[in-house]
């Protein structure tokens, strides 16, 4: 063991940490990644057992507070109508995401210029486009070129996921209204890809893919990065980033797998801990030089938290659909994505269809919506729903507001005694109007598709998957935390590559953009190695 600083220390082995580790390894620098979770064993995923649905509310819950595993830290989200969803392991939240993999639109980077709200990004779609392509190829994306709602692309690696009976029904609904739909880009292998098996329709994407068809970064980027020399240390939880007399980051203090406090020095530190975990570490890294937390001269660390407000409309059909079989995602609509002032709100949303429900999910949904009864009627009322429900989920763009924020809870700590994050969030009027619009339009689609009964949930509380905006990028140090290539304005050897740096949220799932940004920042670092700290 040596006290010599390592070259690059990455905190977090999820979507963005994996991507930057892989990209930087070609520099031959010594790279170490600290991850608070462990390596996943796909055979431990719920889909390998008969209790696969029950485990989504226990050890594979999307809520860290419900899981309460040693790898998790608690999140006080009592002051937020949206509850945080995440996963802590090598692969991060890609272990539990659905694999929906859309890109931002060009307009998403220019919301101030186009709609006079929020701020423009300091980069544009064209800047990220080659990194979207590089990332798609590393993760393995299934889809179909030619979508009129998005800029053209030459090709996509794999054919789209099957429409199935449910997708076909919903597609007919969109067609009858003359509205857009298209096969979703999904990071799910529809044929063998880079050592991964093709999807066999387990229907359990959001509790881990035992087949290895879904692209979680533990089976995409990490095997490549580790083979080429990146050191990944698991069950290591960072408490704070330390600084030297010159105000540069000097390393971290972390707790190892035995709970022992350790110090690790580094020349460059990269934060890749998501929009909650990253501000948490920065706010916990107080010092004489940085009394308000590291990289926080703007006062914006933790502020402008964005989720994506979600609404769901479920339709019941007379004929049997796909039910529990098949990936959750498959098609989407961006008919209402771009701003149309006549709708009464700015920006827009994406409809994703959600294929169906398992037998337990059907029962829980039916009981909660009073479509399934207790007593003798139970069996008949259950069978009217089983394998006959499909859904549209609206993912609405959230705009940044400083009062939506992450702070440190004064009392709550994790198992290592590190102060836990506290979330304060309220819906904007714009978001509420958008949700209302989405429920009405989604109901129209499902009825046009032949649904005999519809019901909605809006907003969905356990939908805080997408954690963005809490260390935003920009060219003005007074109005942003990192510059246009991810480096902290205040600490010139500190980089952030996760969803924290988003300026706006767009109306799509963020993972592909998070990873494209991470690859872009890695590329900028490689181009500037000689004067990285200037």
């Amino acid at each position: 063991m040596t006290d010599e600083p390592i070259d690059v220390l990455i905190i977090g082995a999820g979507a963005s940490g994996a991507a930057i580790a892989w990209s930087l390894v070609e520099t031959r620098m010594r790279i170490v990644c600290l991850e608070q979770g462990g390596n996943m064993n796909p055979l431990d995923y719920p889909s390998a057992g008969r209790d696969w649905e029950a485990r989504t509310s226990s050890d594979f819950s999307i809520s860290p507070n419900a899981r309460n595993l040693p790898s998790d830290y608690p999140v006080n989200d009592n002051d937020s109508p949206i509850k945080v969803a995440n996963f802590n392991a090598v692969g991060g939240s890609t272990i539990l995401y659905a694999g929906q993999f859309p890109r931002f639109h060009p307009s998403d980077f220019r919301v101030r210029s186009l709609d006079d709200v929020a701020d423009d990004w300091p980069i544009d779609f064209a800047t990220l486009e080659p990194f979207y392509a590089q990332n798609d190829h590393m993760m393995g994306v299934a889809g179909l070129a030619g979508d009129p709602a998005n800029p053209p692309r030459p090709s996509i690696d794999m054919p789209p996921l099957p429409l199935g009976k449910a997708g076909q029904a919903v597609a007919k609904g969109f067609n009858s209204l003359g509205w857009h739909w298209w096969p979703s880009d999904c990071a799910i292998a529809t044929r063998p890809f880079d050592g991964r098996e093709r999807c066999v329709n387990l229907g359990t994407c959001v509790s881990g893919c035992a087949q290895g068809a879904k692209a979680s970064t533990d089976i995409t980027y990490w095997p490549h990065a580790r083979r080429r020399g990146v050191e990944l240390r698991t069950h290591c939880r960072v408490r704070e980033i330390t600084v030297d007399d010159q105000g540069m980051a000097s390393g971290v203090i972390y707790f190892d797998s035995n709970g022992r406090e350790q110090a690790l020095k580094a020349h460059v530190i990269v934060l890749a801990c998501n929009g909650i975990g990253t501000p948490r570490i920065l706010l916990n890294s107080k010092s004489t030089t940085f009394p308000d937390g590291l990289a926080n001269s703007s006062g914006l660390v933790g502020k402008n938290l964005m989720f994506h407000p979600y609404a769901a409309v479920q339709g019941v059909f007379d004929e049997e659909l796909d039910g529990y079989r098949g990936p959750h995602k498959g098609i989407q609509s961006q008919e209402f994505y771009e701003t149309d002032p006549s709708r009464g709100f700015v920006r827009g949303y994406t409809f994703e269809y959600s294929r169906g429900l398992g037998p337990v999910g059907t029962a829980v949904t039916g009981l909660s919506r009073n479509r399934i009864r207790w007593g003798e009627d139970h069996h008949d009322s259950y069978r009217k729903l089983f394998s006959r429900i499909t859904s549209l989920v609206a993912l609405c763009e959230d705009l940044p507001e400083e009062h939506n924020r992450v702070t440190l809870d004064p009392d709550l700590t994790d198992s290592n005694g590190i102060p836990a994050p506290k979330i304060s969030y309220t819906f904007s009027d714009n978001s509420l109007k958008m949700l209302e619009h989405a429920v009405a339009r989604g109901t129209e689609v499902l009825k046009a598709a032949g649904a005999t009964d519809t019901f909605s949930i809006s907003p969905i509380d356990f939908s805080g998957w997408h954690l963005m905006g809490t260390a935003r990028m920009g060219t003005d140090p007074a109005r942003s935390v990192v510059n246009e290539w991810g480096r902290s304005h205040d600490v010139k050897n500190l980089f952030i590559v996760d969803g924290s740096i988003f300026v706006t949220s767009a109306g799509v799932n963020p993972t592909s953009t998070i990873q494209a940004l991470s690859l872009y920042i890695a590329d900028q670092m490689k181009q500037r190695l000689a004067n990285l700290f200037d």
Partner: protein
Amino acid sequence: MNILQKSGHQFQQLSREETAILHAIAETVIPASHQYDLPSAGDAPIFSDILATSTKSRSELHTALSVLDDVAYQVAGTGFAALTVTSRLPVGETFRKNHPQQAMVLETLIVQCYYRDDRVMRSLGMEARAPFPKGFVVEQGDWSLLDPVRKRNAFYRPAP
């Protein structure tokens, strides 16, 4: 005061009284069906699964059973397990209406175990197995449905 409070329950293991209430509510939510040749949720193997699974949410379960028994005393003047089968349903309706969170705790526990029973899965046309490794078949569907969308001009918004 319901029977659980009277017995000075310490909210640890399920007591005999609680087990009886849980069995009664399981039978009430999902009774047996002659039409579909299905057992009730109180059937021995399924109820054993319910009891084993209940250890994961024991404190919530204690509360839910206690509240249900309270409602039974308020509505029918006796504990839930002592009610006749036909008189349990109106008590259950009151319980669901006034205590939806506690009702959801019990309903979720019961259906989680019922709908993974071999007999029930087969009755629904499912193979009695975990999804992995065999997986399932999903038909491709009719991709010609995309034809009208393909004819549409690009409509994403240009950015300055």
